[in-house]
């Protein structure tokens, strides 16, 4: 383990105003509301950064625009941006994102979690690690890692 913080002094951005959906005046009881970008973003915006008491949204690790979702084909891709290039926490953040989405989305969905191109030193390795089912399952068997993930996810269930 590294003793000091990886990024001791990150830039904290202001939280965006929660966008209020303009609901129809007379809601249609049987209309389908598809899963969209904002809904996915609402699931993951409050996840806590592993080493700071700020949410991923505040650190601009994730943004609404970095989420692609296709409800028909049950596919979602989240691209996140680590705060510093050599951030070793990138895998933990990615793991948090994956776990949270696994718990929040219907089982038909396929998830793709990626580091934004050019924002991390070992981009390819991280991407590979995050999208390898076996390695994710193995990581979650590790009690230390699971504790860490659960701690990060706690605020997003509030």
């Amino acid at each position, binding site marked *: 383990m590294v003793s000091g913080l990886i990024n001791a002094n990150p830039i904290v951005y202001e939280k965006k105003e929660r966008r209020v*959906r303009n609901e129809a005046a007379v*809601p249609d*009881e*049987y*209309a*389908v*509301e598809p*899963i969209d970008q904002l*809904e996915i973003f*609402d*699931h993951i915006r409050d996840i806590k950064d592993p080493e700071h008491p700020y949410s991923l949204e505040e650190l601009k690790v994730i943004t609404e625009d970095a989420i692609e979702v296709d409800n028909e084909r049950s596919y979602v891709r989240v691209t996140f941006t680590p705060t510093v290039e050599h951030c070793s926490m990138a895998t933990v953040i990615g793991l948090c994102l994956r776990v949270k989405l*696994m*718990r*929040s*989305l*219907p*089982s*038909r969905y396929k998830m793709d979690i990626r580091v934004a191109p050019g924002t991390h030193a070992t981009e390819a390795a991280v991407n590979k690690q995050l999208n390898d089912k076996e390695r994710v*399952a193995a990581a*979650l*068997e590790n*009690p230390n890692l*699971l504790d860490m993930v659960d701690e990060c996810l706690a605020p997003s*269930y509030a």
Partner: protein
Amino acid sequence: MEGYLTTVDNIIRARGILLLGEVLVRLASKPLDDATIRSLIGFFTDRLADWRALRGALVGCLALMRRKSSGGMVSGSDAKAVAESYLQNLQVQSLGQYERKLSFELMECLLERYPNAVASLGDTLIYGICESVDGEKDPHCLMLTFHIIEVLSRLFPDPSDALAGFAHELFEILGCYFPIHFTHQKDEDMTIKRDDLARALMLAFSSTPLFEPYAIPLLLEKLSSSLPSAKLDSLRYLTDCTMKYGADRMAKHIEAIWSSLKEAIFTSLDSVLLFTPESLEGSDLPKNEIAAEALSLLQKLIVQNTKLFLDLIVGDEDISMIFNTISYYKNYHEIPLERKQRLNAVGRVLFTTAKASQVSCNRVFECFFSQLMDILGLSARNSSGQPYFDESILISKRCKHGALYLSIEILSACRDMIASSETILAATSHTEETWKHLLQSFSPALTMGFCSAFICSSEGTHDAATYIGVKGLLILATFPGGYSLISKTVFEKILVTFVSIINEEYSKRLSWKLALKALVEIGSFIERYHESEKESSYMDIVVEKILSLAFVGDFGILFPLRLEALSDIGTSGRSYMLKVVQGLEEAIYANLYEVYVHGSTNSAEIVTHLLKCYSDKVIPWIRCEKGFEEVLLQFAINIWNQIESSTHFNASQTNKKGVLDVMMKAMKLAVANCSEEKQNIIVQKSYNILSSSISFPLEELLLQERFQIAQEVDNSSSRDEWVLSLFAAVTIAVHPQTHIPNTRSIVSLFMTTLLKGNVVAAQALGSMVNKLDLKSTSGQTSSDCTLEEAMDIILNLSLWIFDKNSSSSIQSKMISVHDTALNDLSNGVGSCTSLQIHAILGLAWIGKGLLMRGHEKVNDITMIFLQCLQSSGRAGISHQEKSISENNYKLDLHNSVMKTAADAFQILIGDCEQCLNREFHAIIRPLYKQRFFSAIMPVLQSLVMKLEPLSRSFLFRASAHVIIDTPLIVVLSDTKKIIPMLLDGLSALSNDVVDKEVLYGLLLVLSGILMDKNGQEAVSDSAHTVVNCLVDLTRYPHMTLVRETAVQCLIAISGLSHARIYPMRTQVLQAVIKALDDPKRAVRREAVRCRQAWASIASRSLHF
């Protein structure tokens, strides 16, 4: 006690002296002779020197000092001796907290009660106090300390006195406490708060003018600090000191004060002005506390030292800079933010200044107002000679919103000043004040200015312009004092402007609303100040014009808006309301006539709007005002008259229903708000019309005849139906004491009508039953009846419908009639069922009336319902014999009867807006719902046990209604027994789409139980069945709210004891995973939370 008081043992001596002191405290009101007091006080005075027994001595001295004159007091010389001994012997700061407090109390007492005696001590006293006070920290002692200093300064008012020398030292001691920094925890010291201390210190600060050279600089220094509480305190202290120190002393500091004050105001004020209709006439004082304090200080200073301060303000650079710059910006929105703040601040300063006094007002007008007028390009000479000067000049120079804003502030200040000093105005009215002159000469031009600001706003979407324009006009219009200040032409021009906006500019909501609000304000202003001259022009221009416009021309979508304007204006004053009501009523009558005679659809629509307006706006207003009952009475009587006179009745079927509904509502409200005597008049009147128009034999009604009327469903004319419905409306709304004539036949009449399916008649009957006298009084005629008799009539009539096996002769007769009648009708079965449905509905309303007053006959009615529910209907059997071929058809119909019976429980226990509530004077027994609930639930439960499963569903439905409408707290107390019924009800109701509202209501009760702690305990036994039921409901396709609530209930269940819910986890998780893919977002969101809640109790590793 001699030995104990003088013994050499310190502890015993201390105890002895303390005992003596405490005894004296208890004996405070017992008379003692002078010699005793003298010797006692002498003893305690000596003992002050004995530091080991000090507490007793202090208590004793204090007790003696505080004695009332009636019981013998300590003499002056003795008091002086006490003080001397105190000063000589006590080292207050070296004592413990309690002793310090006692000694401060003693000193306070000395200063307050024997001022002359201690004053002679002079320097020694002051020095002693300085010494003892210095360095005190305890809040309780500090309160006393501050008070001591305050009293002390009062003792030496003369500057040449002893205190003068010590003022500096004393203030050194005081000054270090400012600003109060209170660190005590909240729970530690509840008795003394920061504010108390701050106030005590403030009084000490301002106690003597001698502190002035030290206090003011300190306060000004703290004013510039960044701590908001320090700022606030400094401002308050400054205000207080200003008042106490006097003008001369303050004059020295005025410049410094002004500059810090200006700074405080400029930085603390909000930069945003509000342009909403609500703020139009609010006392728009700044919300900011600092700014408010600063402005009030400013006003005090100006009042005190007018000349000097005005010079400062007039000569101020910042203000003049604002004046120079405002003309650069044409539009409010162009002004940069910090400049807006400045502008706002200057506005407030000018407002305060002008408001302070006549003189300051003069000065402000002289210097600033004329400057503003120049900027605006308005000039006095035009207005005096020719009021309509060249508009093109005006337009070119319009839109100087900044300047307009400032002039509004000045004007409104001026107006407020006049309003607050009405008497002064009367006295000085002969002297020609400058501001008055200026105001008079500029007002027409200003009006034009505001108007143009307002009108040109139509080109863009500038809220600010509209707001400023309206506000300016409003202020001009509401100057008190008749036409002496604002001429009649100006006033009328303003009114005309507003009215034209109201009438024409519907499209612009903001300006329309603002104009309406302004008109209402003007109206209530006139009412408040009894401005008779203005009232007449207001009446002519505004009320008349709007009235006349409201009822001519098109009646499109604008019509409701016009009505809104009309009723709002009416609320501003009694006389206007009278006028408006008159106009409204005329329109109502005229249109009703159209409806009656020609059946005009258009008029029906108009009259619907009118009546809605009448019952929604006018009647509530009348209810708040006193003395308008006559209007309501007249309204009701007139409507009856009109019905009476209209013999040709052509109301077409299509629009009739809506008109009749609103008419009944208006009638109900009008009657409900009348007193009993007035109600009697209305009832009598309506009864006369009813009896003359409806062709029913009022006496000697045989059941048979009655029944035949029931069969002649379509025979009565529509006019009769109107009359009857309106009469029912009257009956619903009367007081219990109001006399209804010929009750017996009215009851029968309503009974027959309700069998035709007239719900209003049923409601009226319910109200009658609710309000009838239990005992007959002597004054009644034979045609009246008591509740018992009425109930007999009702029950006899109703029983036959259901209870065919009864042996009573009347009932058997009825059956025969029934059967023959059935044969006559082509669709016998159908009519029979609908008859039964109507009867059940009617009975439900009657039952509600009985239930609310707590009458036991309600049991009979509920028994009828229950019989309907459990039997498959004995009445049906006879039909089965007759027409076996129609078997299926009949079964279906029968279900509808049973359904009605189940829904009757909803009527019984639910709240109703149309009748039987407080507004319509129903007799309501406290806790009637609880009683009914506890009486009916066991019956329903036992019935469920008895019946075969197929016919249970209606019982569940009935019990669902009862559970939903009973207060939750009652259900909670009985949860264990209710839960099985509730769950069965949920699963029974989930089969049909139509029942979704009932289902949701029932589910809400369940969720209420789950949220409650006691409820959770009760549920935990049956957790498994509850979960099963909820899991089913998470798939309920017809209502999102049901699914959402079901998932929320599951979350609540996850909080139950672990052992209970652990076996259910897989079942729940599977259901929730399905819910994650719900079509609705709200359900998915809850499902995520629910899954997390259950997953975390399931195991460490989730099943992905």
